[in-house]
């Protein structure tokens, strides 16, 4: 195995870090805490992100994108995770773009992907349903009634909402939703609002289709991208914590000299390094060995869940009381950690899947 970054990937990483450090500093991020100001802050960043071509990173060159691989995306996502950027990039450039690339018919690709890649169209996709949990096989065909999708990211702000609906057996369709009814579900992570969307089937348009397996591929890749963001965010929490405990003095010494603090910081690092590896591996699998994608994605998400939740909770503990305040930034990472943990499957769900793949069911 070779997980070293290519020169291009290192450039992508460094330029992303530089860009976000300048264009999305903490005061900008904190605007996301104010429901009135959040959409403006997110939009302002989005314009600049679009200029960099990130929304089209996974979109094929023929469709106006950069045509890069998931491994490249993972490198970028570590950086966007560090800075807790809003959800449009993942919703539009990852989830919706993958849905169209994987399930869309040629017309849909031509119609949507260039605008998605350019960032002029913000898309999102609704997949899960009330009662489906995180299991695509639990989606239910809805022959007559209105389809309701839960956990749809960034729906209020999207120019295109796609639904993946089960039609019958193992078949799914991709539908472009018209006239949606959008309800804010009030995620704990206010930087990434999620919604329930109900669509009147009469105003939806079928723009593609495929199998449940194709849908699972989309979900797995989206989960890997999210896992990489989680690793990046966890690494940032560790940095913030190291910085804080170095400088915070109690009992006449730096708090960072206490073994209890040191050892927790070490455990944060161990979890992060393992999860980072898992993300790189999963991305490489997606690019090279698609038959192992499910297992690799589940390993990555399970590892990222543990690493990020542990880092956020522990980082908060090591900050003491100040970490618990609204003024400090850590709570945004904790809320992102919990919101991410329960997106695309919690650890139990992924472990059950791995157990199934290991024939332990």
């Amino acid at each position, binding site marked *: 195995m070779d997980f070293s970054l290519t020169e291009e990937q290192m450039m992508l990483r460094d330029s992303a870090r530089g860009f976000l450090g300048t264009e999305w500093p903490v005061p900008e991020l904190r605007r996301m805490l104010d*429901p009135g100001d959040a959409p403006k802050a997110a939009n302002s960043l989005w314009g600049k992100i679009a200029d960099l071509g990130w929304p089209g990173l996974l979109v094929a060159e023929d469709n106006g994108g950069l045509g890069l691989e998931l491994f490249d995306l993972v490198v970028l996502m570590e950086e966007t995770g560090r800075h807790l950027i809003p959800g449009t990039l993942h919703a539009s450039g990852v989830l919706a773009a993958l849905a169209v690339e994987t399930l869309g018919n040629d017309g849909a690709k031509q119609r949507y992907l260039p605008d998605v890649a350019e960032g002029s169209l913000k898309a999102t996709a609704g997949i*899960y349903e009330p*009662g489906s*949990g*995180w299991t695509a096989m639990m989606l239910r065909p809805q022959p007559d009634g209105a389809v309701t999708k*839960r*956990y749809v990211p960034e729906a209020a702000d999207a120019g295109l909402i796609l639904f993946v609906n089960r039609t019958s057996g193992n078949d799914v369709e991709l539908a472009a939703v018209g006239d949606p009814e959008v309800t*804010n*579900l*009030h*995620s*704990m*992570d*206010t930087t990434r609002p*999620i919604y329930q969307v109900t669509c009147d089937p009469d105003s939806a348009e079928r723009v593609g289709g495929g199998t449940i397996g194709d849908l699972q591929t989309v979900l797995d890749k989206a989960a890997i991208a999210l896992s990489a963001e989680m690793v990046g965010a966890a690494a940032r929490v560790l940095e913030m914590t190291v910085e804080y405990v170095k400088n915070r*003095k*109690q*009992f*006449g010494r730096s708090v960072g000299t*206490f073994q*209890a*603090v040191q050892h927790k910081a070490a455990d944060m690092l161990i979890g992060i390094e393992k999860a980072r590896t898992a993300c790189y591996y999963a991305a490489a699998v997606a690019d090279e060995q698609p038959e192992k994608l499910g297992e690799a994605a589940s390993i990555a998400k399970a590892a990222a869940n543990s690493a990020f939740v542990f880092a956020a*909770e522990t980082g*908060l*503990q090591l900050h*003491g*009381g100040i*970490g*618990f*305040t*609204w*003024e400090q930034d*850590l*709570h945004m990472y*904790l*809320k992102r950690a*919990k*919101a991410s*943990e*329960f*997106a695309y499957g*919690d650890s*139990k769900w992924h472990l059950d899947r791995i157990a199934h793949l290991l024939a332990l069911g």
Partner: protein
Amino acid sequence: MSRLQDTPAELVFRERLREWLADHAPAIAKHDVQALKTWQKELYEGGWLGLTWPSEYGGQGLGFREQVIFNEESARAKVPPSVNSIGLMIAGPTLIAVGSEKQKKRYLKPMLTAEEIWCQGFSEPNAGSDLAALQTRAVSDGDDYIVTGQKIWTSNSLISDYIWLLVRTDTEAPRHQGITALIVDMHSPGVSVKPLRQMTGEAEFGEVFFDEVRVPKSNRVGAENDGWIIGMKTFTRERANISVSLSVRLQQQFDRLLESVRGRNIPLDPQQAREVAQAYVDSECLTMTCERLAERLFGFESSVVKVAWAEMNQRLQEMGLSTLGPDAPLLPGGGFDDADDSATWGTETLSDGVESFAKSWQFGYLRSRANTIEGGTSEILRSVIAERVLGLPRK
């Protein structure tokens, strides 16, 4: 002898109390301070407050068992918590132990009747775990001290009449030896309070600022520069009282969890069932350990219970959150902004309806992250256990 059942006298007490609460327990919104004060006064007049306090100061002169029964029964009746909890659980008991006769006569009874609400001013921005680093100064000026400085994490500071304060009276002495305990009128000129918003959205704590506040020396508790030991006694009392009340709180949280898992559509798998069973084992062991160690809880053993409780409550909240599945991160009622208003007590069960953020698992999860920090970080308390209970050497 029966080890498990009330004695006949205890049983009489319990039944009388249960009946009284059934007749009197009110429904009060969380921030209706005046109603809460009235309710506390009613409780006091019913003879149910200051159960273990000496009768000469307005207490009931009863034992620890009666306090436990009171806690159990008031939880069962879902009465609102005390508006003057810092007074009743921390300042009052410490004052009984170390205050002058005059101070006890003056302050204890209005604490019980909620005529005077108390808060506690120990932590400072640069003196958290390391309390001895506190810098709030008190300079002698005739019969008064002039107090200047800042306290933080002060519960109830916005509604308090008095603050139980530690200040530095000698800046030359070794840091543990220049500290003095004072009772300060929160209405004195120069005292100001700023709410401190937490990550839950609530402002449960405040920052208290002292700008040349004049405090009569008669409000000093104990001798000048003798405050460190009083602070330590306050801490053990704080932890002991957290311990005593936690039995009830843990059991309430466990009951919520049970209701939450039973109320789901999906049956529990064996792991989830075992996790709940393990939580039951731990919460039963812990609450009974409080009773078993009751007499030692005013010593360092209180740390044993505090550490275990904090981590147990965090686990219960995480489990509760997990029962919600993909809905786990979604804030009922919209979350942070209206947390303050619609909330009642966070002890409601599902059957009360999950209407608001403040009674939700989401709020419980976020709030519980502070459990291992407030009242002594788990790191500090584990060292206290090691050094003070087990006798390991200090640095």
